[in-house]
Structures are given as structure tokens and as C-alpha cells.
């Protein structure tokens, strides 16, 4: 058994690309080795921005032998009347270099055929690797490639070296004009010259000596530990998200955490601006006290030990200039009258062929008006409608042009500075949130309203332009926006029918009734599938509970549907659900296949039938009222109360009467009962507990 060590040394690869490349490398090695019947125990990977390592343990020295059955001509044409081989058979033997004794018969779908079993000896692993490594490297996919040398091989960054050791012996190969060798680079500045590598053990040891911590997990641990030390030492919280952690892990071969301070005068800037400039411009982390107040301290990660404090001193100077820039944008933007910037939105396209942002704010105004009325929040109308007009103004400020991630936030901050009403600036501040269903709850109702309006307008606009969402692709964030809408509706208990909002939104993007109908139906489908997935996978409602409500007429009254699913989920924990399940199944069975009929009181025969009708009529009003008030448990109890009467009816009355009129009338009564139940849910789809 051998082992195999591979390192691709490369000039600094962007941190955001590295995981994807590692994944492809591992996958491709696995695939190509399997394809070539080379056995191995495991593939280990490590990567930094300057190297990709693959280590394969217990790799066999040659590929498995291959048993192949080679099909020849049919028996009919192979043997002549005298029982002698024909030309066809002779050619087959000659081609495969075999004797007549090697030929056997097999039964195929097309009749008897001749064939031979051939054993191909497996190639040496060395030779296979020689062939597949250039293929693997050539097949890597990057978001952007470049050319740099005569080979004209596109790659993500220039390749420096290819280390390729099978059983500690160099495999000679070439890719992009670079020949494999035993030499690798160490740390970019701390390591002196090329390092010779003779084994995997050697590789790890040599890199360690040359200031390269090759394993991601170890670098991560070092960074996290050192940040925690600082947090404990000065009693603060350092905010770090996955993106920044990933950046630090992959951008430093020898990460060392450092801290520094800046002039307190910059704390006068809004904390949102301070943290954005630190993170985006300088890749430094903001630091907060225990009350979540931002401090004049920062934390960063260096690629060398900072014993002389050169790195932290340097960063202290640099951050000063960065905050001066922030102050420049902040001060200058505030010289403009923020309200008047709305005119400038006419010059900015929302999306190609979807009008400009001024048009968009007009549509938002209209949708917000609808939403506030539907949710009985007329008292907020003036402010939130004003917010809908102003919410995109910050797109023309210097700050947002420079830092698009501050959109919304800056609009809010600029208006707050102008002493605008709290409802206005807060609505704008958060209206791009939430970013998905699992995001946190919005802090302001008005922002929720504006967020729904903005997102339904995005979704409707994109879908009207034929943009599709597939399982892997959603470049315009349509799915995320839809999920966010559902989240806001549930979070703020907004009782309205999204269908109506969809219709209004669709009206603005279509010219005729037919197009509108088509668009509405696409949107409806989108939301149905989002509701189904969110209810089942994120809210953890039972799948059969979700099935029972997903086709009800008012499913797009999302908050109602949420309450309904909650109530039914409670009921499925009790025995009473079984009554509803069997009743609904029974009703559906009987009425299956019939047209819809109407009840005629004159045709009601006998007491059982008349009583059932009376009870149905009384309960119907009550049940519908309970359902309107989202009181589904009680509504169901009402249905259950009818059970003895219904049972009695089924016992005494023959639905399929001989007289068609009477039969149809009885069906009509059962259809009405079914309809009453179905308004709540299709209980027949719920799985009985026993």
C-alpha cells in the first residue's frame, strides 16, 4: 500500500472561492480514481489561499484487473452449414487475439451470440495519476479565470508549483507549463526559500516550521481562541460573522489576532456606519461593550506574529483615514435635502425593462395603502405611505453608492437626522429585512408593511419578465423574498389575503387580462409551494396537517393558515381528530363522481334527514363565524357535535334512493356538509393515529 500527496502551490486565491475549489478537487480525485478502479482508504484535503493539498492514504499500487465480456457475432452467422467458423467469427477471434477455445455462447434478447471473456490487467496507479491530474486541474471551474503565461491555460491565479508524491516518489507531470517537483513555497514573507518535501510527514513538519498552519480547523481554532482571549481580557464582545471568519481562515497561513483603538471622536458617527466601514473597507471587526454599545476598539487578523506591534499600529493609522472617508460621505450627503432626492430616482433603473426607481416607489405607495387598509391600520397610513415614497432615496446618496449593503439603513439614518417621524424612518431603515424565513423578527410594524410591498413588487416584476426559479438557481432572490413575506405576515399576525395583494401587484406589470391572469397564477403557485415548505420544514407542522390545508380556498390568507395549522396540530394529538377524519372520508366517498346539486327542502324525507338538515343549517353559520375568527378548535368541536345526528342519518337513510330526485337531494346535503368541512381543511388527508 502506498500513499499519495499532492499540493498545488498558487498565488493568492480569493478566500471566497477556496471551499468550492477544495470540494471540486476532492470530488474529481474520488471520481477519477473510482473510474480507473484504483482503490484507496481516504482522501484528506487542506487549503489556504496559497496552496491546495490532497492526501490519499492506502492507495493501491495498481488498478484492479478488469473483467470484460466482449460480444461477438450471432451464432447463426458464425458457424457455416458444415459446422466450420465463418469469416465473421474468424475476424472476431483475430481482432481480439483469441483461440476458438476462448469463445463461448451466450443467450441474449436477440438470440444466441458468441462472446469471449477478457481480463485486462490494471494500469499502474502512477500512470493513472499522471494522466488524471492534469485532467482534474483542467476541469476545475472558477467564477473568473485569467491567463498569465505561454501555456494560455486559463486558471484562477498563476500556479507556482505542483507537488506530486506517490509513495514518496515524485510523479513527473506538467500542467499549464508548470512541471511537478518536490519543492514547495512556505509562508510568503516568513519562509526563506523553496522547501524540499519527501513525505507527508515531512510536508506537515516543514510547513509547520515555515509558518504555515495547513489545516483549516487549526487556523480557525487559533483565531477563535485569540478573539475569546481579547474578549475576556477587556470584557467586550467582538462581532464576527461566518463570512469574515472564512475570510480570515483562508487569507492567512499563520493567523494572529491583534487589537487596536481609534480616536473616540469617530464614535459620533452612527454605529452602523462605523461597523460597515471597518468590516467592508478594512476587514477589521467592531467591538461592543456588554450593553451592545460600539467601542473605539477594533480586532483584526494578521498573517504574521505582531510582537513589535507594527501591524496594530499601522491599522490604527489606516482606520483613522477610513473614518474620515465615512465622515465625508455622511456630512456631504446630509447637505442635500434627502426628501428632494426622490426626483433623482427617475434616472436609476430598477431593472432593465422594469422602469426606474421613481416608478417603483409609486407602486409601493399603492401597495402600502392596500396593506394598511386590509390590516386595519389606517391610523398609520400617512407616515408609512410617506415612507414608501422616500424609501429608495438613499440609492442616490454617496454613502449607498459606495456601500450598497447600507441601503435602507442610510435612508433611515438620514431621515432620523432630519427629525422625521419615527414611523417613517424606522420603516425605511428595516424595509430590506428580513432576508429569509429564519432571519430575526423585524422591530417595526411599518417596516414590515413596506418590506412586504417592496418584495411582492420585486417578485412580481421579475416573474413578469419571465425569470424563473429552479431548485439550484434563484439569482434574483425570488424564493428568499417570498419566504420573507410569509415570515413578516406571521410575525406581525397580519390578517389579510395575499391573493388580493398579488392581483394588485400583477396589475402594474401587465397590459391585458390574460397576461394578468397568467402572472397571478404563477405567483399563486410560487407562494403555495413556499407555504408548504415553510410550514412543513421550518415550522415543523406534520406533513399530513400541511396537506390537509394546502388546497383550502383561503390558504393565501397566510396568518389564518398558520393559526389553522397550529390548531389542527393540537387536535391531531387528541382522539377527536379521528372522528373528523372518518367523517370526511365517508362524505367524500359517497359524493365522489356526482355533479353538484342543490338542496331542496321539499324533497327532504323522514325525520333523520330533516333533523340533519336543520342541524347543518344552524351549525353552518356558527362554524363559519368561528372560522372567520380563526377559532378552528371550536369550529371542529361544532362539527363533532353533529356526529350523532350524522351517524343516525347514515344508519337510517339510504342515500342512493331509487328516485333520482330524492337521491340527488340527499347527495346535495352531503355535498354541503363536505363543503363545510373542506372550508376548514381536508381532514381525509390526515393520517389516523391508530
Amino acid at each position, binding site marked *: 500500500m502506498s500513499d499519495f500527496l499532492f499540493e498545488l502551490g498558487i*498565488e*493568492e486565491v*480569493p*478566500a*471566497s472561492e477556496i471551499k468550492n475549489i477544495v470540494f471540486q478537487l476532492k470530488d474529481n480525485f474520488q471520481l477519477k480514481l473510482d473510474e480507473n478502479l484504483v482503490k484507496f482508504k481516504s482522501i484528506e484535503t487542506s487549503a489556504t*489561499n496559497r496552496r491546495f493539498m490532497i492526501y490519499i492514504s492506502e492507495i493501491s499500487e495498481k488498478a484492479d484487473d478488469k473483467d470484460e465480456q466482449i460480444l461477438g457475432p450471432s451464432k447463426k452467422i458464425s458457424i457455416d452449414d458444415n459446422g466450420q467458423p465463418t469469416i465473421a467469427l474468424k475476424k472476431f477471434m483475430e481482432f481480439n487475439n483469441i483461440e476458438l477455445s476462448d469463445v463461448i455462447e451466450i443467450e441474449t434478447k436477440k438470440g444466441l451470440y458468441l462472446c469471449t471473456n477478457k481480463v485486462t490487467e490494471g494500469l499502474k496507479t502512477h500512470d493513472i495519476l499522471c494522466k488524471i491530474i492534469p485532467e482534474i486541474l483542467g476541469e476545475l471551474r472558477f467564477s*473568473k479565470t*485569467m*491567463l*498569465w*503565461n*505561454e501555456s*494560455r491555460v486559463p486558471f484562477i*491565479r*498563476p500556479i507556482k508549483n505542483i507537488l506530486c508524491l506517490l509513495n514518496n516518489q515524485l510523479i513527473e507531470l506538467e500542467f499549464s507549463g508548470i512541471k511537478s517537483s518536490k519543492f514547495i513555497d512556505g509562508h*510568503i*514573507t*516568513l519562509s526563506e526559500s523553496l522547501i524540499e518535501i519527501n513525505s507527508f510527514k515531512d510536508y506537515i513538519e516543514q510547513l509547520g516550521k515555515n509558518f504555515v498552519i495547513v489545516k483549516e480547523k487549526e487556523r480557525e481554532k487559533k483565531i477563535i481562541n485569540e478573539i475569546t482571549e481579547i474578549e475576556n481580557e477587556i470584557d467586550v464582545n467582538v462581532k464576527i460573522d461566518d463570512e469574515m471568519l472564512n475570510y480570515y481562515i483562508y*487569507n492567512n497561513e499563520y493567523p494572529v489576532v491583534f487589537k487596536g483603538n481609534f480616536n473616540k471622536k469617530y464614535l459620533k458617527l452612527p454605529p452602523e456606519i462605523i461597523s460597515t466601514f471597518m468590516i467592508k473597507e*478594512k*476587514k*477589521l471587526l467592531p467591538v461592543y461593550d456588554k450593553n451592545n454599545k460600539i467601542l473605539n476598539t477594533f480586532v*483584526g487578523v*494578521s*498573517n*504574521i506574529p*505582531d510582537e*513589535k506591534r*507594527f*501591524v496594530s*499600529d*499601522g*491599522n490604527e*493609522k*489606516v*482606520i*483613522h*483615514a477610513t473614518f*474620515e*472617508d465615512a465622515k*465625508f460621505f455622511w456630512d456631504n450627503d446630509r447637505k442635500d435635502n434627502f426628501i428632494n432626492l426622490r426626483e433623482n430616482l427617475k*434616472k*436609476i*433603473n430598477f431593472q432593465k425593462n422594469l422602469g426606474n426607481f421613481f416608478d417603483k416607489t409609486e407602486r409601493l405607495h399603492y401597495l402600502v395603502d392596500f396593506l394598511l387598509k386590509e390590516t386595519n391600520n389606517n391610523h398609520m397610513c400617512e407616515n408609512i405611505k410617506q415612507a414608501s415614497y422616500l424609501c429608495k432615496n438613499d440609492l442616490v446618496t454617496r454613502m449607498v453608492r459606495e456601500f450598497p449593503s447600507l441601503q435602507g439603513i442610510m435612508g433611515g439614518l438620514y431621515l432620523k437626522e432630519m427629525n422625521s417621524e419615527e414611523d417613517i424612518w424606522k420603516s425605511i431603515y428595516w424595509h430590506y429585512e428580513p432576508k429569509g424565513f429564519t432571519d430575526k423578527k423585524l422591530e417595526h410594524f411599518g417596516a414590515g408593511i413596506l418590506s412586504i410591498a417592496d418584495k411582492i413588487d420585486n417578485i412580481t416584476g421579475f416573474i413578469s419578465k419571465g425569470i424563473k426559479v429552479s431548485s439550484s438557481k434563484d439569482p434574483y432572490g425570488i424564493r428568499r423574498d417570498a419566504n420573507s413575506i410569509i415570515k413578516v405576515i406571521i410575525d406581525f399576525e397580519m390578517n389579510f389575503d395575499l391573493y388580493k395583494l398579488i392581483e394588485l401587484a400583477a396589475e402594474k406589470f401587465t397590459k391585458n387580462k390574460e397576461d394578468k391572469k397568467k402572472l397571478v397564477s404563477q405567483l399563486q403557485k410560487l407562494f403555495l409551494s413556499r407555504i408548504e415548505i415553510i410550514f412543513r420544514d421550518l415550522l415543523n407542522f406534520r406533513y399530513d396537517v400541511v396537506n390537509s390545508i394546502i388546497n383550502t380556498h383561503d390558504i393565501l390568507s397566510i396568518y389564518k393558515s398558520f393559526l389553522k395549522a397550529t390548531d389542527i396540530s393540537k387536535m391531531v394529538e387528541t382522539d377527536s381528530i379521528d372522528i373528523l377524519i372518518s367523517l370526511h372520508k365517508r362524505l367524500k366517498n359517497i359524493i365522489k363522481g356526482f355533479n353538484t346539486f342543490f338542496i331542496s327542502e321539499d324533497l327532504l324525507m323522514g325525520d333523520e334527514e330533516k333533523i340533519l338538515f336543520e342541524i347543518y343549517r344552524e351549525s353552518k353559520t356558527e362554524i363559519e363565524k368561528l372560522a372567520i375568527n380563526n377559532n378552528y378548535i371550536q369550529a371542529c368541536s361544532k362539527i363533532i357535535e353533529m356526529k350523532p345526528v350524522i351517524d343516525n342519518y347514515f344508519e337510517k337513510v339510504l342515500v342512493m334512493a331509487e328516485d333520482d330526485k330524492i337521491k340527488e337531494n340527499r347527495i346535495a346535503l352531503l355535498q354541503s356538509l363536505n363543503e363545510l368541512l373542506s372550508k376548514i381543511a381536508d381532514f381525509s388527508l390526515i393520517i389516523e393515529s391508530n
Partner: protein
Amino acid sequence: MSLQNIIIKLQEFWSQNGCYIASGYDTEVGAGTMTPDTFFRVLGEKPWKVAFWQPSRRPCDGRYAENPNRVQKHNQFQVILKPTPDNGQILFLNSLNHLGIDIRSHDIKFDEDNWASPSIGAWGVGWQIMCDGLEISQFTYFQQAGGIELNPNSLEITYGLERLAIFLDKRNSIYNLKWGHDISYSELRTKEEKQFSIYNFEIANIDFLRNIFDQYKNEAKKLIESNLYLPAYDYLLKCSHTFNILDARKAISTAERTTLIKTMRDLSSKIAKKYIKDTGKNNE
């Protein structure tokens, strides 16, 4: 170390490494990349090694002399190595060493920064080089110029001279730098920065600028037709600078920006083609 000593040291280093030391160009440019010594010479097959100091104008970056390291005119040191050497990174680190920077005590990072200059149809892949958090250089593998794919590729190294000086002189602000002997940066530049910031952001006559943009453009077109691609390129540079002032004045809408950039890119592409035809190295 004074700014003039940095320039002298860099000229010395790159001269020792085979570069011809050129003078900076005498028409306003946004970066050394836009000079004819870069734009034309990266086209075609002929090897080229050049290094020069280039003052560069970026009207949007003006800060009324109030920002410690942002100015509307800064100084670049531009190096072009064609074809790209195998040891570009090491050469660069050695140049820092030549300037007296102890590279083992500072956090030097090659941080992704792909550069593009759409108005001359040029782009490249590479990094900004950070030294203790300060961006001191751009390091770019040139991929296209004038919309033409380059073969061979060139390596472009652009040092920000003020940034380097701040770093080497341990200053908080470029205005505290020494240019040479007793002349300070502040003395040389403060008034200029203030006046140009006022002009670029507040006073520049928008109608006048639009008008000369069109005239420069028409002149360039005529010159291209006459195969005088060198003067044509000068007028393209003037278009670009005029565009930058209009941009600083916030006079350009998004849609208009796209159109104007396309106008300039088309000119650059025609000029590049003329150059290649003339020098007989057709890369298309």
C-alpha cells in the same frame, strides 16, 4: 524617507531589473494604466519593460485637503513587465526591501482586487497589496486592453507613492510628508487640493464640460479615420478626464454613464486596432 527618495529608490530598483525609466505622461490620466506607455505597449507581442512616476487625477477622490490620505491628484509609480515574469511577487517584495521595509515584521497581504478600466476597454486580475492594513500597491495580470485579449500578458505593478511614504515615514497624514529636503507635501499641495475639490464638486461648468466632451470625442473620431491613433488617444484621455469631473459634479445619470463609457470604450477599441495594424502584430 521623503517622497522624492522613494521615487529615486524605485527607479533604481526597477532600472536594475531591466526596466526603461520613462517620464510620466503629460495629459491628465486617472492612472498609470492609461498612459500610452502602458495602453499601447501591452498590445502586440513585443516584450516591454518600463517604470515611471505618474501623477494621476481622480476628481471624485478630492477631499478639500481634509482627509489624511485621499486626494484628487495622487502620485503613482507604474511598472509594466511584458511578458509576465515567473517571480513577479518576489520581485515586488524585493522592491519593498529595497525601500527599506522589513517585510518579515509587517503584515503584507495580497488581497483580491480585480481591476477594470471600462473606458479604455481594459481589465486585469490581481490584488491590492496591503501593508499593515494600508493599501500600498496594485498588482495586476493584465488580460485585455482596448477590448483586445492580450498575448503575451503583462504584469502591472502600481505603487501608491503617498501611501508608501506615509508608511515609511510613519505619518498619520499625507500632508505631514516631506517631498524632499525642506519642501513639505502640505506646502506643495494643500491649496491645489482645496481649489480643485471646490472646482470638481461645486463649480465646474456642466454645460461647458458636456460640450467639450463631445468635441474631444469628435476630434478623436476624425483622427482615428486619419490613422493618427496617437493623438486620437490623447483626445480619448481628455474625454475620460472630462467625464470624471462631470461624475464628481454628480451630473451623470446611470443610463448616461453607460452610454458615455461605451463611447469611450468604442474609441479605445478602434485606436487599439489601428495600433496593432500599424505595428503589424495582429492579436485578434
